[in-house]
C-alpha cells in the first residue's frame, strides 16, 4: 500500500513513531549487548587502579592493537552466530593463513600483494565450503566446521611438515606489528587499531544494510525468511565467508604481531565464540549487536590482563574465564527472559496506535545496530 506522503514527511512520521535517540541508547544499554560495555569499562578501571601506567594513552592504544585480532575474529564469528550457526573452523583458518604467509611470502617483498590476495581467496573459499555444506547438504554447522577444523589443520601441517619456513617479509609483518609513529598524545597508532576500526565500521554498516537485517531475520526464523523471498542458503553462506575472511584478517595481524608458528590461532574458535556470547549475542541466532561482540573480545582480554596484573597464577586463568562466561551468560539469559515475560517496563509500556501524522521531531534515525 502506498501512502500519500512525500519522502521528507515520511521520514518525520517514522521518527515520530520511534523513541528518541537518547531513549533508544538507554534501552540498548539495559540489554546484555549494552551491559558488556559497562563490564569492559569496569575491567579497564580495575586494571588502571592496579597498574596506573596502563591508563596512559600509549598503553591503552597498544592494548587495543593487540586485542584487534581476536576482536576481528569475534566480529566474524558474530555473523555466523547471529544467523543461527557455529563456526568452529576459525582457529584452523587462522593457523592456515599464518603458515601460508610464512611459507609463500618469505623474504620477497614483491610477493606480499599476490599472497595477500591468495589468502583472501582461500579464506572466502573455506567459508563458501562451510556455508554450502551447511545450507545445501543440511549438515549441522557444528559438525561441518568441526570437520573443517580437523581437516584444514591436518592438511596444513601435512603440507608444511608442521613447521613454517620462516618469517615473512617485514613489509608484510608491519601490518600487524607497525603503526603510524609520532602521533601526539598516543605516541603510535598501531595499524591493527586502524584495521579493527575499519572492520568494525564495515560490520556495523553491513548489519544495518538489507543484508545484515536479512541475516538477523534468517537467524531469528529461517522458515519465515525463506517465505519472504530471502535466499537463506546464500545469506548464511555469506556469513560463513565473512567469518573465514575475518579469520584471515586476524591471521594477517597475528603473523605481524607474533610471527609464524603453527600454534598461532589455536583455540581461536572458542575464544571468539566466548567473546561473542559475552557480548550478549544469543546462541541460536536472531539477537545481538555486532559491536557488542567486539566489546566482548575486549572484555575477555581485559580480564586476562587484569589477572596478570593481579599476579593470579596463570594456571587459574581458565577457571576465572569459565566462571565469568557462565555468570555473564546467565545474567544475559535472565535479562532476556525478564523482557520476554514483559519484564522491563520498556517492553510493555503504553501501547499506542502507530500514527501517520507527521510531527516535527529532533534527531535523525538510528538503527538498532
Amino acid at each position, binding site marked *: 500500500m502506498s501512502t500519500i506522503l512525500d519522502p521528507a514527511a515520511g521520514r518525520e512520521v517514522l521518527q515520530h513513531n520511534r523513541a528518541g535517540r537518547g531513549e533508544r541508547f538507554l534501552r540498548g544499554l539495559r540489554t546484555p549487548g549494552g551491559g558488556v560495555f559497562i563490564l569492559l569499562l569496569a575491567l579497564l578501571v580495575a586494571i588502571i587502579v592496579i597498574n596506573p601506567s596502563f591508563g596512559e594513552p600509549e598503553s591503552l592504544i597498544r592494548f587495543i592493537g593487540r586485542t584487534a585480532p581476536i576482536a576481528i575474529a569475534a566480529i566474524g564469528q558474530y555473523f555466523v552466530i547471529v544467523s543461527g550457526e557455529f563456526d568452529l573452523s576459525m582457529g584452523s583458518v587462522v593457523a592456515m593463513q599464518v603458515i601460508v604467509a610464512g611459507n609463500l611470502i618469505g623474504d620477497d617483498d614483491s610477493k606480499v600483494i599476490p599472497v595477500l590476495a591468495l589468502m583472501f581467496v582461500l579464506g572466502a573459499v573455506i567459508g563458501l565450503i562451510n556455508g554450502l555444506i551447511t545450507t545445501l547438504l543440511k549438515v549441522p554447522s557444528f559438525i561441518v566446521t568441526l570437520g573443517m577444523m580437523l581437516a584444514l589443520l591436518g592438511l596444513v601441517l601435512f603440507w608444511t611438515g608442521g613447521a613454517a619456513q620462516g618469517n615473512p617479509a617485514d613489509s608484510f609483518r608491519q601490518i600487524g606489528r607497525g603503526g603510524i609513529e609520532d602521533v601526539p598524545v598516543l605516541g603510535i597508532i598501531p595499524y591493527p587499531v586502524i584495521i579493527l576500526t575499519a572492520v568494525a565500521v564495515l560490520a556495523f554498516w553491513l548489519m544495518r544494510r538489507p543484508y545484515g537485517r536479512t541475516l538477523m531475520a534468517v537467524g531469528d526464523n529461517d522458515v519465515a525468511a525463506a517465505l519472504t*523471498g530471502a535466499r537463506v542458503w546464500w545469506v548464511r553462506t555469506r556469513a560463513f565467508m565473512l567469518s573465514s575472511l575475518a579469520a584471515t584478517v586476524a591471521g594477517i595481524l597475528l603473523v605481524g604481531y607474533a610471527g609464524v608458528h603453527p600454534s598461532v590461532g589455536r583455540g581461536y574458535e572458542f575464544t571468539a565464540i566466548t567473546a561473542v556470547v559475552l557480548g550478549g549475542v544469543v546462541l541460536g541466532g536472531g539477537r545481538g549487536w555486532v559491536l557488542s561482540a567486539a566489546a566482548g573480545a575486549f572484555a575477555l582480554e581485559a580480564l586476562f590482563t587484569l589477572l596478570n596484573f593481579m599476579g593470579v597464577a596463570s594456571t587459574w586463568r581458565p577457571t576465572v574465564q569459565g566462571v565469568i562466561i557462565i555468570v555473564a551468560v546467565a545474567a544475559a539469559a535472565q535479562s532476556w527472559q525478564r523482557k520476554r515475560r514483559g519484564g522491563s517496563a520498556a517492553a510493555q509500556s503504553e501501547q499506542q496506535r502507530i500514527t501517520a501524522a507527521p510531527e516535527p521531531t529532533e534527531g535523525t534515525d538510528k538503527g538498532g545496530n
Partner: protein
Amino acid sequence: MEGIVSSDAAENGQKRDQPVLEVRGLTKSFFGNPVLQDASLTLHPGEVHGVVGENGAGKSTLMKILAGVYQRDSGTVLLRGQSVQFSHPTQAHEAGLSTVFQEFNLLPDRTVAENIYLGREPRKGLLVSRAKMNAATADLLESLGIGSIRPTALARSLSVAEQQIVEIAKAVSYDARIISMDEPTAALSGPEVSLLYGIVQRLSERGTGILYVSHRLREIFDLCQTITVLKDGRIVGTKPAAELDDASLVRMMVGRPISAYFPDKLPAATAAESPAAAAGETAAPTPLLELEGAGNDQLDGIGLRLMPGEIVGVAGLQGSGRTELLHAVFGAAPFNRGSMQMDGRSARPHSPRQAVRQGIALITEDRKAQGLSLNQSLLDNALGVVRAVFPGRTSSVRREVAGSFSSLEVVARDLDQEVQYLSGGNQQKIVLAKWLAVSPRVVLLDEPTRGIDVGAKVAVYRLMRQLAAEGKGVLMVSSELPEVIGMSDRILVMRDGRLAGELPAGSTEEEILRLATGARVPGAAPEDGSTTGGTA
C-alpha cells in the same frame, strides 16, 4: 486405564448445582501491564462455558493461570470449593483440571501413545509398560470415535486434523472434571468439528465442566450454555447463551457495533491501471494468474484463473491441499508439471524469491512459525521482504512504513518494539504490511483471519477489498466458510490434492461441503480439476 469415563457419575449428578470451579477476582499483570483484572467466573459440572473476546483480551492468560502455567497476582480459584494454586501443570492435572492449549503441539517424533501419556507413563513395577500404554491409548481413541489412529503411529505421520484430535484426546485422558479448551477448532474444519462437538457433548453429559474459548461464534452458540465475554482483561459480562445473538455478542466483545462483517466491494476505481484494461476494452482481459494441469507430489491437475480485481476463495477440508496449492504457486513447493502463467507469460517460480520478483505475495497460515521474526522489531519485520528481495528500495519503503501501519491501525509501543510482544491481530497486520510494502499483484492469503479478533478481521477484509479495487488478484484459502462465502467472487473447492469444482459467489455452505467431501452435487463440475478449474 484412565479413560474418559468419570469414575463417579452419580456423585457428579448430585453436585450438579454446586460449581466445580469458581474464579474470584483474578488479577494478572505482566510486570506492570495488567492483562487480567478482577476476572471472575463460575463453572458447573456438565456445563459448557464459552469464553470469548478480542485478541489479547486475556483468554489464554486465564486458561494458563488455571492450568498452572502462569501464577496469578491475586484472586482466588476454588476447585470444588477448595482454594487451589498450581505452580506446575502437573498439579492441575492431579487436581482434575486439564487443558488443550492454544499454542500447544505434539512431539512429532514420538508416538501417539507416548504423546498422550507424556509425563505420566503407565508403569509396571519400575519400568514403563509400552503394552499398557498402547492398549490404554487404543481404548481412549476408540471411545472418542477415532479408533482409526494407531497408538504407535508417529505424531508427525498424522494429518493436521488427526494431530489436533489427539491433543484433545490427551486432555480428555486425564479423566478431568474440568477441561479447558483454548481454540480447539482453530485448525479443524467440517467433519472434525462435528467430531469435537460429539466429544464435548459426551464429556458434558458425564458431568465434566468445560471452558471453551473460540473466535468462531457459531461454535460458541452451538455448544455453550453460558458465555463470558472478556475485554481488555476485564469481564464484560456472563450471560446464558440463549439471551445472546451474534450481534449482541460482538457488541459486548468489541464495545462498538460492527456495521458489517464483510465490507462491500469497492468501486474498481483504479482498475484501469491493470495492464489488461490499459490494452483496451476490446480484448478480453488477460488473467493475472493462470494454471493449467499443474501438479507436484501433493497436487494434481490444477487449473485455475485469477483475473485482476478478483477475490477467489479456496475452500476444502483440512489437508485437502489448499496450503500446498498456495505454496506451489509461490514456489515454496514448486509445481513440477503443467503450466503456470502470469499476465499471459509463462512463469513457474521455483523459489519464493522468484515468485516475489514476479509480484506474488504469500501471507502464511502460521504467523509465528512462518510469517514473523519474533525477536525483531516492527520496523525490521515490515521491511523484511524489501530488504531480502529488493534491497535497493529499502530506504523509500522505510519512509512509508509508519503510514502503512497507521492505516492498518497497528497498535504498539513504537516501531522498535519486538513483534513477539504484540497480540495476534497486530502481528497479522505486521505480516500484511511487510507484503504491501512491495506492492504485489497477486496476493495469496492462507487463513488470513485465523485466531484474530473481530476488529482485526474486518481490517483484513477491508484491505482485501481495497487490493481488489486496485486491480490486484487475491487468492484466499480459508476454513471459515462464512468468510469464504462473504468475501469471494468465486469459490474453488479442493479435495485430495485436486480441484473438486468451482462455485459462484453466494453459494451456500452445504454446496461447498458437498464438493469438499465428495458427495455429488447436481450441476457441479466433474471431479477432474483440469477441466473445471478455469473461470466461468
